């Protein structure tokens, strides 16, 4: 079907008053849910699921999608203001967003995040409209060997996320991989490091790791830092909107972030967290402002936000066209369609083209609505920082507790968050960064699963990783990247030593 005709038809569907209304409800609910640490889009979608039983399937899907990407907008707000990711995928936004807020530039950071999210969302939408069938085909060509190769590439990129010592960064990635082995080994069914606790059989939830390491760990640090008066002492109102130079600086990172995000979104399972981490790592290698990354670079906020939003949109491609949900929230989308007798799969684009194009067009409308909703709110959020911290932090602790509890409605998860929170505080004391650990933790179980599955399917022949074309290319690329970054690190060290010698 002609893309332009399809899209304009979809626009008509999405602009129907009731769809517009549900889109608005969805994105608004999503934004506010996203701000609450721990409570992600999953809880919000589960909550509106029974409501969708009564709706047209298109309205239902538009509303659920709105919650989903609205939460990504909201998730970054808590990251920037309090260094606590509202959703795990906005963890990377903390790295530069929070330093910006500490410098009194919270307004600029929030603005940049909203604009980047919008840009990323638009890129994701275009990719979905133009490339959905192609990407679906691509995802179909991704067997275990290809997944393993992509994950390897992601891991090499992730170890570059760290802003401190590179050795500690790599150690954290490896520690993440290692902690990811906790739980039942899905290939054999044997328990690993669960200490006989049934709740650990399914491993540790990503939300718990993110809330513990970033949220609780940060709170412990910040109580002393903020003991006197407001969380932010100075807010520079002149620096509320990005300057022209900042606008210009954000443009290319948004494009790159959106592109990388679109790719990872379309691969079920890798998702927004990995997309934003890889995009950030790439940007840190090539951006002209790379020296300022980690100290409040506006590019460092724009890139992960563009990436996680475009990934949020393209995540619908495998969900709708292959019926493979990449995340728990996407599984809910399939549930909402099932209740209307629509089975996601290759025929959805043809049999329900109304639904597909209506959804794509609703991305445009929803993202515009989010921009309209978020920009006036920036002032309000910034003012939130002036609430004395002694009122703020006990409230945040409660929000984290409720959020973590409501993932599985299980108190054990709160205990586990406590353990990760203490660990997160100790990590800060010893100058380890939590972000690379989080990425290792997301990718580790997938990496192991795909590796072992590839070996089972090839009946024990490891050469498949190189002989299958896509995985072969990816692995060569990874090796090149690895060698290049080691060489450039060594060269930088030699240069520094040379400079020191000449200074003496």
């Amino acid at each position: 079907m002609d893309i332009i005709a399809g899209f304009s038809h979809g626009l008509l569907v999405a602009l129907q008053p009731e769809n517009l209304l549900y889109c608005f409800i969805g994105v608004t609910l999503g934004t506010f849910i996203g701000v609450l640490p721990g409570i992600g889009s999953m809880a919000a979608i589960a909550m509106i699921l029974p409501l969708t039983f009564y709706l047209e399937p298109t309205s239902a899907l538009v509303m659920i999608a709105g919650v989903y990407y609205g939460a990504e907008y909201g998730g970054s707000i808590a990251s920037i203001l309090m260094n606590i990711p509202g959703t795990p995928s906005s963890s990377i936004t903390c790295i530069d967003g929070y330093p910006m807020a500490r410098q009194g530039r919270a307004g600029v950071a929030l603005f940049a995040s909203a604009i980047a999210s919008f840009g990323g969302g638009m890129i994701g939408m275009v990719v979905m409209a133009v490339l959905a069938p192609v990407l679906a085909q691509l995802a179909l060509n991704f067997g275990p060997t290809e997944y393993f190769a992509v994950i390897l590439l992601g891991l090499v990129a992730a170890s570059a996320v760290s802003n401190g010592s590179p050795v500690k960064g790599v150690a954290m990635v490896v520690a993440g991989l290692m902690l990811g082995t906790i739980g039942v080994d899905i290939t054999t069914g044997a328990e690993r490091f669960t200490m006989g606790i049934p709740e650990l059989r399914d491993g540790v939830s990503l939300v718990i790791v993110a809330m513990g390491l970033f949220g609780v760990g940060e709170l412990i640090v910040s109580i002393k830092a903020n003991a006197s008066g407001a969380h932010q002492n100075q807010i520079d109102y002149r620096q509320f909107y990005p300057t022209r130079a900042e606008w210009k600086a954000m443009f290319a990172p948004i494009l790159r972030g959106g592109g990388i995000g679109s790719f990872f979104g379309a691969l079920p399972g890798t998702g927004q967290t990995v997309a934003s981490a890889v995009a950030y790592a790439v940007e840190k290698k090539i951006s002209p402002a790379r020296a300022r990354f980690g100290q409040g670079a506006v590019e460092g906020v724009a890139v992960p936000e563009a990436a996680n939003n475009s990934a949020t949109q393209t995540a619908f491609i495998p969900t709708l066209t292959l019926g493979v949900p990449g995340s728990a929230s996407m599984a809910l989308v399939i549930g909402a369609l099932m209740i209307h007798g629509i089975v996601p799969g290759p025929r959805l684009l043809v049999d329900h083209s109304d639904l597909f194009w209506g959804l794509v067009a609703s991305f445009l409308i929803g993202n515009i609505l989010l921009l309209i909703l978020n920009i006036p709110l920036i002032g309000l959020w910034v003012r939130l920082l002036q609430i004395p911290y002694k009122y703020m932090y006990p409230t945040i602790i409660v929000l984290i507790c409720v959020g973590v509890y409501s993932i599985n409605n299980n108190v054990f998860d709160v205990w586990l968050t406590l353990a990760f929170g203490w660990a997160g505080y100790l990590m800060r004391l010893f100058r380890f960064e939590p972000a690379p650990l989080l990425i290792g933790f997301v990718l580790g179980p997938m990496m192991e699963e795909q590796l072992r599955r590839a070996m089972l399917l090839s009946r024990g022949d490891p050469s498949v990783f190189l002989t299958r074309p896509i995985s072969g290319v990816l692995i060569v690329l990874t090796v090149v990247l690895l060698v290049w970054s080691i060489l450039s690190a060594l060269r930088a060290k030699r240069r520094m030593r040379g400079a020191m010698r000449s200074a003496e």
Partner: protein
Amino acid sequence: MSFRAATALTLAAALMGSTALAEPGAWTDEPVRIVVTFPPGGTSDLIARILAQYFESEFGQRAVVDNRPGAGGTVAADYVAQQAPDGTTLILGNNAPFTIAPTQFDSLPYDPMAGFTHIAYLGASTPALYVQPTMGIATLDDFIAYANEHGITYGSSGVGSITHILGQAVDSALGIEQIHVPYQGSAPAIQDFRAGVLESYYDMLAQNRDLINDGETLPLALAAPARSPLFPQIPTFRELGYDVVIENWTGLSGPAGMDPEMVQTIHDTVEAIMEMQPVVDQLAQWGITHTVMTSDEFTGFVGGTIETWRPLILSANVNGG
């Protein structure tokens, strides 16, 4: 009709008569939580949400769905077993915590029979065996021949899952040895199957409707007692001479020691909902066959599955410790 069958029928009629005494309707003033063993979004969760919705709209019984996923449903079952038997906590149970876990795990924190009041059977969906249409396999006999000659890989939705146990049952009934490749749920297995790296898999019928119609996957045999109305052309294992029946059942249970009268009310309310046309249509869509069972029959059914599945689970060698 033999005399004994006739008495059984009369007895059944008498029982039915006695059940008619309880009127479907609300059984408690408190909101009821229906605990689901899966995260939101799956068929099981949707059934719970439909029940919750009809409890409230048709019978004025407030109800919420409480998802407590984890450890093959044992986290949810353990939670429910510890609640007061006052009808405010129910569990949408299935074979994972009630049939498989008792054999799979050396120690369970709950007793699947004595720890619960099994109230109502909701239905079962049927898994089938699918192979690549391009492999030159058209019948189960071809499949056996191929497996014996080359070995064959099959995808399941996880170690200890119903499809894994079905794979084991097929191994022992057909006298073959398939290579088990576990996935996390059937969707990723189907993805690898379509990518051409997996040779066969086991999964429920309804989710594969489009793929079957498009000729992308070839169902060889059903593990049900009878053919499915969805695809009447697919034979059952039993017809083909192999006794393999593994169904994915769902039912409603509560903590042990519930008041029999309340159990009857809940049972009849559930039955009334299961007969409503929109619910009947929805279940048919999902390939779930509902059969009426009394609470006693359902309790017997759960106990029966534990016994009949035990050797299969043991042969699957899935020990969760």
